[in-house]
């Protein structure tokens, strides 16, 4: 291979577009030609500098919610509609087997906002849920061992949510994560149902009265919220409503 051909091949080497054979021939030329080797180094340096210094514009957090809200829905009216009251749900009625696809559930544990169930908090919880799915940042601590997740969360958030592996019930524990809801640190316990992610958020609400579970559907996600022993819980998910209710029931039993 001559210099001219080598120079023409350099960008392709940079872009991983050279076949093994051509790569080998180019490497052989470069080993013998300091001038072409220096040119490659320069091109590599520019590529690295470009990748490092070019601005990357991340989508504003609200955009995902806006997109989801604007997708046409053919079967479900776009209004908020309560879909169940937990106490009325009986356990065990809906088989555990993984017949359900599409379950992503978030239970949030965080501090402060007292307006349980208010639209802005529900929106914030859904946004966090979507963000956790998008940002490749589902868990800070990834383990199915509840004895690892709980102390980790306790060390990072000032509330200690119940953490129990519910694998036997069809909701294996994936890990935990510190999240932010409305600017407040929150603990998120992450579960899975079949192939789908489940996030569970909770936060301390000292002095506030207990509230029974309440479910809603918004933007294609199901949300269950309740307050118990000074902790407000939010479960956000795209699981079927009855599965989310069952999950919430299991969590409540675990914390009792």
């Amino acid at each position, binding site marked *: 291979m001559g210099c001219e051909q080598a120079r023409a091949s350099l960008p392709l080497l940079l872009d991983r*577009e050279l076949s093994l054979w051509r790569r080998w021939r180019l490497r052989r030329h470069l080993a013998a030609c300091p001038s072409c080797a220096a040119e490659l180094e320069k091109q590599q340096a520019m590529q690295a500098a470009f990748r490092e210094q*070019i601005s990357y514009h991340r*989508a504003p957090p609200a955009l995902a919610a*806006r997109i989801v809200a604007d997708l046409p829905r053919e079967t479900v009216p776009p209004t908020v509609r309560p879909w169940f009251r937990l106490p009325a749900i009986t356990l065990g009625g809906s088989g555990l087997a993984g017949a359900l696809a599409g379950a992503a559930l978030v239970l949030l544990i965080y501090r402060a906002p007292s307006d349980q169930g208010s639209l802005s908090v529900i929106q914030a919880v859904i946004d966090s849920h979507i963000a956790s799915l998008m940002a490749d940042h589902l868990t800070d601590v990834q383990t199915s061992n509840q004895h690892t997740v709980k102390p980790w969360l306790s060390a990072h958030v000032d509330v200690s949510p119940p953490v129990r592996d519910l694998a036997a019930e069809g909701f294996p524990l994936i890990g935990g994560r510190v999240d932010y809801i409305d600017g407040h640190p929150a603990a998120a316990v992450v579960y899975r149902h079949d192939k789908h992610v489940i996030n569970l958020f909770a936060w301390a609400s000292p002095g506030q009265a207990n509230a029974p579970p309440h479910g809603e559907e918004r933007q294609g996600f199901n949300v269950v919220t309740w307050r118990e022993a000074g902790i407000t819980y939010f479960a956000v998910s795209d699981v079927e409503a009855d599965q989310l209710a069952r999950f919430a029931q299991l969590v409540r039993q675990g914390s009792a």
Partner: protein
Amino acid sequence: MPSDDRKRRFELLALPHLDATYNLARWLAGNAAEAEDLVQETYLRAYRYFDSYEGGDLRVWLLTILRNNFSTWARQNRGGRMTYVGELPQEDLDAPHVPLWSSPGRDPEALLQRSDDAERLNALMERLLPEHRTVLLLREVEELSYQEIATVTGVAIGTVMSRLARARAALRRHWFDAEARERADGV
């Protein structure tokens, strides 16, 4: 409810590519508000045609839709704030008279006076033709293959390569080498 399942499936598959889509849109539109509109329209259209999506990299598919949306949008906005030069005939690509800059109002040399490398690079990028900017972003940031870039931009692989070469040459001349020159000159 099949259409609800379809929507969930779309969200789970498509939303992870929101940053990639937005980044390109932001670089093409030049401002956040229009980038958001472009992205939203892209997702809406992608959802509408989701049934025709036949597998493969969904990110490439979304970026393709975005690029088409942008072309339409740019045609409609021609004469406005932004000058979109549009598709150049391929035989002209290597001709020396073809401008690399979409906004002739500002002299690229003026950029050399900026001290910050990153700032200068990003300002320079905004001056590149949209098609040059696009291939650079798709290659260096999204790390797409030539074939994938050809799919997204709707041109032949040879065109992708020549655009990439011209874009890199411009960067080298006005950013990378200029930096080295300045340092050598003690500017």
